[in-house]
């Protein structure tokens, strides 16, 4: 015997065979289980934000034109934007110097940041590349990709020239 309420006041009494109910419940569980492979869990919002990227020479002066043999410092400010986190989150900042589709230099900086905190880092790259227009791209990953690291911030790109 099974009882349930229908609407606000009516109570309907209905008889149902117990095994029919069991079969319905089992089918419902089977259907829900079979739907699991189709489910998606999306949580790919970034943990960090690159606030600014400036190129500086060895005197700390912001500059976007360099010559061979000079050091270029990629001054980036990074903020941990996770709202609810009490642990310090590690990250790897990478600066890629690229012309067309060839990498000519790479700078790296590894640290960790508490939620809501910011840090400025300026890894240096010694310029040894032909003259032309280059792009400096700053990435923030959780670690090196070869160690299972993945992107934790949208990248930022700036353009400069080597004369």
């Amino acid at each position, binding site marked *: 015997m099974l009882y349930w309420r229908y609407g606000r006041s009516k109570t309907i009494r209905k008889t149902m065979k117990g095994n029919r109910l069991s079969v319905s419940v089992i089918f419902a569980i089977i259907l829900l289980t079979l739907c699991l492979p189709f489910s998606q869990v999306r949580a*790919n919002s970034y943990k960090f934000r690159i606030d600014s990227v400036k190129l500086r020479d060895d005197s700390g002066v912001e500059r976007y034109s360099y010559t061979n043999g000079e050091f270029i410092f990629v001054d980036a400010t990074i903020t941990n934007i996770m709202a609810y986190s009490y642990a310090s989150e590690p990250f790897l900042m990478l600066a*890629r110097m690229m012309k067309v589709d060839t990498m000519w230099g790479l700078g790296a900086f590894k640290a960790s940041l508490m939620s809501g905190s910011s840090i400025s880092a300026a890894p240096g790259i010694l310029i040894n590349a032909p003259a032309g227009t280059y792009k400096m791209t700053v990435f923030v990953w959780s670690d090196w990709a070869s160690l299972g690291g993945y992107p934790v911030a949208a990248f930022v790109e700036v353009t400069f020239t080597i004369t």
Partner: protein
Amino acid sequence: MALLVTALALISTVLFFLPVLSYRFGPSLSLSTEKAEYGKGDSVKIEGLARESLLTPLASEPVAIEVRSGESIVWIDQVITDKSGHFSTSFTLGENSPPGSYEAYASTRVSQGLTSFSVRA
């Protein structure tokens, strides 16, 4: 009724092994290059497919890509998967690229992939 019980028994058996199948066909990332061997100055294209499960692509997901030749890093990039979970990156090998074996790694928050190619002298 007997037929129904048999069907349920069969489905229950499948469900019993579902965790194993889910693990086998869980998050995955396959990675490949167009060729197995390249020369200096050649363009290398790396393509990949990221899946969240057997039937669900990992769409709009950032991917970190790193190419290494031994201890030196030859290329890094960050791309986003399309709605089918596909992604690609390409770069040109420098004229001073050392010959030998190169490893390409790609990584998302749920999966990692690896492929290798060689650069001839």
